[in-house]
C-alpha cells in the first residue's frame, strides 16, 4: 500500500493537573494515497487528538507519525508537513483570517512565500474547486456556515496539499451546509486526487467513503469498508450513534483478561469470539 500518512504505535497523553490522561493509546494506522477515509467516534474517543497528530499540530507522546516519509517530530520540516497535510476545523469562523474571501484564501500561499501571480492562480483554482469563485470579493461574515466552511477548505486547498484532514467540519452546520461540504470533499477526492480523512460523528457522512475507521477510547475498534461497518452499527443506532455494543462487550472482556479479538464487530462474530474465548479458558 502506498501510504501518505503512517501512524506507528502512537500514544498521546494529556496532563490535567496531577493525572495523566491518554487520549490516543498505542494506535497504528496507514492512510492510502488518494483514498477517502472516515474516522467515526463519539466525543472523547480521541479522534480529534488523532487528527491533530496527522499534520504535526500535536506531537505524539510516544510512537511516530510519518507524512510521506517525514517524521512530524522533526522541527526543521514542520512547514513541509503542514503543506502536505492540510487541516480544516469545526468552526469556520475561527479559521478565517481576512475580511475578504480571496484575501483569506491567499493567506496560506502567502505564508509559503510564493510569487504574487502564482498565489492569484492558486486562489482562483481553490475557489473554483469549492464552487465559491463568485463570492471571491465578499465578506466572510455575510456568508452561510456551509459557504464559510468551503472558504476554509479553499484556504487549505490553495496550499495544494496532498491530503486533507477535516476535524468535524460539519458539526456546526445545518443539513444543507453539511451536504455541501460532503459533496465538495468527494469532488476534490475524485477530481483532484486529494486524499481525504474526514473525522465526524455523523454516520451518514461515511456512506460513500472507501474506508471507515471507528475509534473509541483512544483506539481503533473497527476499520473496514462502510458496508461492513454499517451492518454492525446500524442496529446500534438506537443506542445513540455510540460505539457498537459488541465492540464494547468484547473490549470489556479483553480488558478483563479474556483473549478475544476486538475487531469482530457483528453479533455473530462476537458471539463466536466469546465462545472461543470461553472454551480456551477451560
Amino acid at each position, binding site marked *: 500500500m502506498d501510504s501518505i500518512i503512517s501512524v506507528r504505535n502512537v500514544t498521546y497523553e494529556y496532563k490535567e493537573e496531577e493525572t495523566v490522561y491518554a487520549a490516543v493509546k498505542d494506535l497504528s494506522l496507514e492512510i492510502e494515497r488518494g483514498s477517502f477515509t472516515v474516522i467515526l467516534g463519539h466525543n472523547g474517543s480521541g479522534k480529534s487528538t488523532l487528527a491533530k497528530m496527522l499534520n504535526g499540530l500535536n506531537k505524539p507522546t510516544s510512537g511516530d507519525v510519518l507524512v510521506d516519509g517525514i517524521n512530524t517530530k522533526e522541527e526543521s520540516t514542520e512547514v513541509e508537513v*503542514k503543506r502536505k497535510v492540510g487541516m480544516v476545523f469545526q468552526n469556520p469562523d475561527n479559521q478565517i*483570517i481576512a*475580511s*475578504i474571501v480571496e484575501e483569506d484564501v491567499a*493567506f*496560506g500561499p502567502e*505564508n509559503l512565500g510564493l510569487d504574487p501571480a502564482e498565489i492569484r492562480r492558486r486562489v482562483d483554482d481553490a475557489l473554483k474547486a469549492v464552487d465559491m469563485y463568485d463570492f471571491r470579493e465578499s465578506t466572510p461574515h455575510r456568508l452561510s456556515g456551509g459557504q464559510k466552511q468551503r472558504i476554509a477548505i479553499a484556504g487549505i486547498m490553495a496550499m495544494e496539499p496532498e491530503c486533507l484532514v477535516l476535524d468535524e467540519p460539519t458539526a456546526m452546520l445545518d443539513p444543507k451546509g453539511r451536504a455541501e461540504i460532503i459533496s465538495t470533499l468527494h469532488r476534490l477526492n475524485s477530481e483532484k486526487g486529494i486524499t481525504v480523512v474526514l473525522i465526524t460523528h455523523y454516520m451518514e457522512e461515511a456512506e460513500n467513503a472507501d474506508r471507515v475507521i471507528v475509534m473509541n477510547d483512544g483506539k481503533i475498534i473497527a476499520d473496514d469498508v462502510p458496508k461492513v461497518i454499517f451492518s454492525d452499527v446500524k442496529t446500534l443506532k438506537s443506542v445513540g450513534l455510540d460505539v457498537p455494543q459488541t465492540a464494547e462487550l468484547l473490549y470489556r472482556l479483553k480488558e478483563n483478561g479474556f483473549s478475544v479479538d476486538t475487531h469482530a464487530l457483528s453479533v455473530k462474530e462476537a458471539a463466536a469470539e466469546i465462545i472461543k474465548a470461553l472454551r480456551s479458558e477451560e
Partner: protein
Amino acid sequence: MLKDITFGQYYESRSLIHRTDPRLKMVLLIALIVFIFLAKNTFSMALAVLFVLSVMAVSKVPVKLYLKNMKAILPVLIFTGIINLFYGEGETLISFWKLEITTGGIYRAVFMMVRITLLIFLSSALTYTTTPNDLTDAIESLLSPLRFVGLKSAVHTLAMMMTIALRFIPTLIEEAEKIMNAQKARGADLENGSLRERVKALIPILIPLLISSVRRAYELAEAMECRCYNGGEGRTRMKQMHIRPRDFAVLAVCAAVCGGIITLNILF
C-alpha cells in the same frame, strides 16, 4: 443597539479617489492637513475650501455622510469657536465682565471652525473611499522602512493584529448579541436602573464574551499554524500595490493646491 456600531466607513463606489493608491491617499492626507493649518488668510483658506469641496464631489460619497461625521465633532467645533471669539483684536462689538468680542475675534472663530471642518471632511474622504483592509496594508507598507532599524516583525505583527481585529469585529458583535439575548431570557435587565446598576448588568455579558474570545484566539492560532504561518518571515502578498499614472495626476493636483496656499499666503 450593537448593530449601530460600524467599523470602517467604506462607501462603495469607483470614483477616482476610490481608485487612488491607499498609501498615496494617506500621505496626501497628512500633507494637506499641514497645509490647511498653514493657510493664514482668507484667500488661501478659500482655495483650501474649494479644494476640499471638490474632493468631496469627486469622491461620489453622499454629502449627508460627510455631515454625519460632523455631528460627532460639533461640540468641539462650537467650543473652539466660542474660545476664539475672545482672542481677536479690532473693534469691540460686545463686552461684558472682562471679556470682549471683537470683529477680529469673529473672523478668527469662523476661520478656526472652517479649518476644523475641512480636516474632518478630508479625513472622512479617506475613510469613506478606502476599505479598512487597504488602510491596514497601506500602514504596513508605509511603516516598512522601519525594518531597517530592526522593527520588521513589529510592523508585520501590528498589521496582522489589525487585520484580525477587523475580521473579528462583526463576529464578536454577533456573539455579544447572542449572549445579551441569552441573559435577557434569564431575566437580566440591561436597560433600566442607575448607571451603576447598568454597568453591573454588563458583567455577565462581558465575562462569557471574554472567555469565548480567548477560545477563539486559541483555535485561530492553530488554524494559522496549519496554514504555515510563522510570523511573517518570508511571506509574500497576493495583492501588490502599484503606483499608476492617475496617482501621479492626483499627486500633482495636491502639490499644486499646497503651492497655491503658500503663494496666496505670501501675496496677500
